[in-house]
């Protein structure tokens, strides 16, 4: 099965507008819809998509635990008192539920953002916003690129330092600290110089001037239109359903939620469709690829 090994993500190949809109909607809904079913849908879809992109999910566990434990320790609202904390404030069941919900929400949003970073590369971002907000989009893409570039350059500098005999390991702490500070100073100088160079380079190319055109390889094709329609339908339905109280869930002062009706079921179904859109698109593309492969083999 050669064709399934390293394949480009179908959703990432869509038009940047579709990508950006999808992440904007999904992250917004994940933050706003605190209904446990919605949170579960968002978290699971984000985890599936992140796993597909080979993102590490291990860092989420301490984050979730911390959030879930901290909330009952800091919030004391709620009608169901379980016990009293040493501070004299009550520990309530509702704050535990809310802590769990907040943990799910936080990790879902973090996962969606990590997927966003994989899909929305800086060229896509500049393609979308380079015209509208030239300086801000350049600054944003530069700062988003900063951390990985900084790490890569740091590795280079460290190797160079080792090559000239300034070992970074196996020496006294004072010497290590001195060397670390030296490397850090080199890095700061490099990053400042690099930022100025980038800015100068972009200016010399006439970036942000009116009438400037830019080459792009993005085409808005039929598939993108379809995806955009799907996004439009889902978001309209979810906004309307949200306004109509389809995802009503109250944590404080007592847990209260709307009844489970066909309407709320359809709300969750549409939310699931929205969140799973990249995964579904990928699955469909993979299946059509397999079908063509099989057809080709039988024909040959």
């Amino acid at each position, binding site marked *: 099965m050669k064709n399934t090994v390293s394949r480009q993500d179908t959703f990432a190949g869509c038009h940047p507008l579709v990508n950006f809109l999808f992440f904007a909607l999904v992250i917004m809904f994940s933050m706003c819809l605190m209904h446990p079913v919605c949170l579960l849908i968002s978290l699971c879809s984000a985890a599936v998509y992140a796993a597909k992109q080979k993102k590490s999910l291990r860092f989420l566990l301490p984050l979730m635990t911390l959030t879930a434990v901290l909330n009952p320790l800091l919030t*004391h*609202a709620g009608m169901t*008192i379980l016990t009293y904390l040493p501070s004299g404030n009550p520990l309530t069941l509702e704050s535990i539920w809310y802590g769990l919900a907040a943990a799910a929400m936080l990790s879902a949003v973090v996962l969606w953002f990590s997927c966003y970073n994989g899909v929305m590369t800086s060229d896509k971002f500049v393609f979308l916003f380079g015209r509208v907000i030239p300086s801000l989009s350049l600054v944003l893409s530069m700062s988003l690129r900063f951390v990985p570039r900084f790490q890569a350059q740091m590795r280079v500098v460290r190797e160079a330092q080792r090559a000239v005999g300034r070992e970074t390991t196996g020496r006294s702490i004072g010497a290590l600290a001195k060397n670390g500070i030296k490397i850090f100073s080199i890095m700061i100088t490099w990053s400042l110089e690099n930022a100025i160079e980038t800015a100068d380079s972009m200016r010399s190319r006439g970036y942000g001037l009116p009438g400037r055109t830019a080459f792009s390889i993005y085409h808005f094709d039929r598939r993108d239109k379809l995806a955009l329609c799907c996004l439009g339908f889902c978001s309209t339905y979810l906004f309307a359903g949200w306004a109509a109280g389809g995802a009503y869930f109250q944590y404080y002062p*007592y847990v209260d939620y709307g009844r489970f009706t066909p309407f709320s079921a359809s709300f969750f179904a549409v939310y699931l469709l929205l969140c799973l859109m990249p995964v579904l698109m990928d699955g469909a593309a993979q299946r059509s690829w397999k079908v063509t492969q099989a057809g080709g083999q039988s024909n040959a």
Partner: protein
Amino acid sequence: MKKWFKKNKWTVIVSVFVLAMLAFSFWYGGSAPGARGWSVMPRNTTTTETEAVGEPHSSKTPQAQTSAEDEVPETAKDAYLTDPTPAGKPAPVEPQNGGETGAEAANPTASAETGLTCTISISCKTILDNMSLCDPAKAKIVPEDGWILNSTAVPFTEGESVFDILQRVCQQKGIQMESKWVPIYNSAYIEGIDNLYDFDVGENSGWMYKVNGWFPNYGCSRYCVKSGNTIDFVYTCDQGNDVGGGSAVR
């Protein structure tokens, strides 16, 4: 003009957008005229305030100043930003000094033999008049008659503060209560009782307390309870003006 607009189109659009956002949040936050603010007038309750309940405090007479055994000058605030207490009213007792005896005999069973009792009540009647301002999530938990705790006699030990008694009574009766220690006032601040929190009923709402009808101008951890005292915790929706304690809030 046209050229200028073309050049600065986005600056104009963004600044208009930001202004619109600020105006919306100003209106939504309830600061717009009509909703709450800009018509802040002291209600006439201030006249019927504390005089109706007990000793009239003709506060700043020199004779009264000597009776209050505080040696701080009249106009000066103490270390915890508290104005001098009116004549005839107990001065604040720091919980670090006064609470010592209370801490060692914290169990209320031991205090039964001392025979010291006080009365405590918790009321949120003012919310019933301000239901339109009430947080919809909290509207259902407001008691119908406004009483969270009817007048109850409780035994206590010498040196206990109003806060100690409130906390113990709430724990005994299973009433939810959240407090926060505020170092600059050297007292606990009652954030919420029975899930009714400050700012739940408009931005001027919160909990206040009075002892024998007087709203102390210091925190409830600094009020050392005497036998026979009547402690009332009341919820205000208007900076204390609707419960007769406007002078304690400034």
